[in-house]
């Protein structure tokens, strides 16, 4: 297990390093100059040069990258004009847009994205696994068809339509729910949940079809396994067999997929976040891309990368835990 963890960590670090190189390379070819953007449209060349120095963009890109790597280890100092801003290790740099250390910026966005992701996950699991189980039991019947069409509709509808429709119905017309704003969980758990209900639903509708189909096929697969026959031969009733044994058997792939999805979700559900005005990581990333805010983009991509890689590892571990027959290599 220790070896496994070490190996995965090594791999993850390598992945993250490659990611940062990729982002720097992309940044090089992508349009938009952060110095011009920061300086303002009516700046002259001289002013832009000054701002470029100020943003530490004067050096060639590879040198900048080396400084970035150095900053990760040792931290960096930045001038605020009146004083010095220390960005402690691991320092991803300062945002060009608002001069905050990127790590701090990411940390402030993380709770939002985490709230969104975790809640949506609970909902899509309930919706997806429930639907999948039901359609596995009623396979071939009308119930299954209706459920299939419903979940697929969710998948086939882009978030920006689902979300707006939900807002219109529940917040504007029926006024059952408030228009979402982010209320930190620590401030008011009830308001937190209430406000996030629609974003959760939007994402859950998008994702649940996948889980429904997965649960359905995994349940059917498990039902065909030998140990189910054993319990039939020992007089267990069908409901008990499905509820206790078949579902349990269908769980590992669901758990594995879920861990990965959750990881990706930490990369941000940018459309959902934008639509519902949730200041999460996804929106930060997209904004930073648009404003060529390289340090934030790199930080966010690395953060997401870490989440995805971690999720992949967690998925494997969970799979191994859920299905003890699998060993980790």
């Amino acid at each position: 297990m220790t070896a496994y963890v070490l190996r995965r960590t090594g791999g993850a670090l390598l992945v993250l390093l490659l990611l940062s190189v990729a982002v720097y390379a992309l940044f090089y070819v992508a349009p938009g100059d952060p110095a011009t953007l920061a300086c303002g449209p009516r700046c002259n060349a001289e002013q832009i040069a000054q701002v470029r120095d100020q943003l530490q963009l004067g050096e060639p890109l590879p040198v900048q990258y080396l400084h970035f790597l150095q900053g990760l280890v040792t931290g960096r100092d930045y001038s605020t004009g009146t004083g010095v801003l220390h960005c402690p290790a691991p320092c991803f740099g300062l945002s060009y847009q608002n001069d905050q250390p990127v790590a701090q910026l990411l940390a402030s966005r993380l709770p939002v994205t985490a709230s969104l992701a975790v809640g949506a996950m609970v909902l899509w699991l309930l919706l997806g696994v429930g639907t999948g189980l039901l359609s596995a039991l009623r396979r071939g019947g009308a119930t299954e068809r209706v459920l299939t069409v419903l979940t697929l509709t969710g998948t086939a509808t882009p978030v920006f339509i689902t979300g707006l429709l939900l807002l219109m119905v529940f917040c504007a017309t029926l006024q059952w729910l408030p228009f979402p704003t982010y209320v930190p969980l620590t401030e008011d758990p009830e308001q937190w949940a209430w406000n996030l209900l629609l974003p959760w639903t939007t994402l859950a509708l998008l994702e649940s079809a996948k889980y429904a189909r997965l649960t359905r096929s995994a349940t059917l697969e498990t039902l065909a396994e030998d140990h189910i026959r054993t319990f039939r031969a020992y007089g267990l009733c069908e409901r008990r067999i499905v509820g206790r044994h078949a579902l349990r058997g269908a769980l590992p792939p669901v758990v594995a997929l879920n861990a990965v999805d959750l990881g990706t979700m930490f990369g941000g559900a940018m459309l959902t976040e934008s639509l519902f005005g949730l200041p999460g990581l996804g929106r930060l990333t997209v904004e930073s891309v648009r404003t060529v805010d390289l340090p934030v983009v790199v930080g966010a991509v690395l953060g997401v990368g870490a989440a995805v890689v971690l999720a992949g590892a967690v998925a494997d571990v969970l799979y191994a835990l859920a299905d003890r027959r699998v060993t980790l290599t």
Partner: protein
Amino acid sequence: MAEPARTPLRSRRLLLTARRVAAAAIGVTLAAGATACGPKDAADAGADAAPHKGGTLTVLNSEPQTDFDPARLYTSGGGKVPTLVFRTLTTRKRANGAAGTKAVPDLATDTGRPSKNATVWTYTLKDGLKFEDGTPITSADIKYGIERSFAAELSGGAPYLRDWLIGGEKYQGPYKDNSKDGLKSIETPDDKTLVFHLKKPEGEFPLLATQTQFAPVPRAKDTGTKYEEHPVSSGPYQVVKNTGDGEHLLLKRNPHWSERTDKERHAYPDTVDVRSGLDSAVINQRLATGSGPDAAAVTTDTNLGPAELARVSGDKELEKRVGTGHFGYTNYLAFNPKVKPFDKPEVRQAIAYAVNRRSVVNAAGGSSLAEPATTFLPDQKSFGYTGADPFPAGRTGNPEKARELLKKAGYPHGLKITLTHSTAKNFATSPEVATAVQDALKKAGITVELKGLEDNDYKDTVHSLKDEPGLFIGGWGADWPSGGPFLAPIFDGRQIVKDAYNFNHAQLDDPAVNHEIDAINKLTDLHTAAARWGALDDRIGEQALSVPLFHPVYKRLHGKSIRNVVISDWDGVLDISQVAVK
């Protein structure tokens, strides 16, 4: 200000919040008098009852107040939430429509006293001015505020101080320049007096002095780039909370602000709660629904999109809560005559004739959201609008005339050209407008190939002397309501910028034009100046260096219990310093 300033760099948003009109700062005007857009929907809500103090005003915005440092705000950016916190030497008149296009005294006792042919401007501060911590505001604080806007760390403001003040082009701000006197062209003979020395006559200096760079900053409290987290207030409100990089601002009354020294700001609500980062469609839906705190909500950066307008226009109750406004802004086709075939005036004229402004207006959101433009200057009196139409194309274009001109130019069998535009969905430089132009020119035998560029790419390209395409969709807005900042950056030959953003798309360097610009700048009588700007615009317009397409109109919704709605033509923004919720 210029078109890019409409999307102030530091709070540039994504295309993905599509309906948020690019002109984020654009407001709704209850235009008065002369302008073509009548004041249809005057402030009914405010009329039924007198405004009272108290309550909480909610502001629902799409753009977070990422920049809250007076040095970094571009002109009109200061007209919104920052106006509650920063007072400046002068400020715009807080009045509906055209009346709001004037500069009036704010911290100063008057709008400035010019001397030496308007190259020296002197201001005296009012008595009893205090910061939020009770320390008195001095002329040194204002000088320091201006000086720090020269620092590279705090870049982002407009170029005028650099260009106008003597020594401005060399000065690098107080962080780098430790000399005792700082920027020498600003003198502070005593705590109350400021004297500005300019390179050349600038009759519009009082208008410039409305910008946030003219807000006082106490040197002792300056924390450089971190100052924006809690700028020291000189206005009626102070910052209590600023989270999420300006996404959530909570403003409470500043106890040291005195109504006696401030005639312009009313400050009725006790609290202002600014929530931003919202999708524009959601903002409008919330304002329309108006449940809970949303009843007392306004927005300062979002207007109704076409689909929302279509819905609102069927609803009497909602219609009453929609304000209409103009802001000096023009969307146009820009030619680069250095690129063939646009070197031929006939080709440019042919395109000017072929354009179908009705399609274009529809693409920009319909006749309620855009008005056809025939002049480069916005259709407002303060700009010197003349209503000229050098190439009359009617409402839907004149393809026959265009063909004729093309034949004359040597293209009897039509022409194939490329039109560059941004892929941002902003109803201005966007694909919709481009497609409308494309469809119209087809009728004149001109095949248009569209070249949509990602917004950053678009800006880098069209503002680069080197890469500027022959034809692109551009837009230009006013830094203040006058022809000066509107025409000079575009047509003044000395403002052709190398190695940075250039806005003189036609690269026009006409000594006569340059000379006339200088001459008008000397005028301190802005009425006379406006007339001359109008005449200059007509003269340039005849060269067909650009094809004006439309002037945007803004429809903005506000909450049910909002009173005293004031929208000036200065920036078209619903003035939150005037709003009451009780």
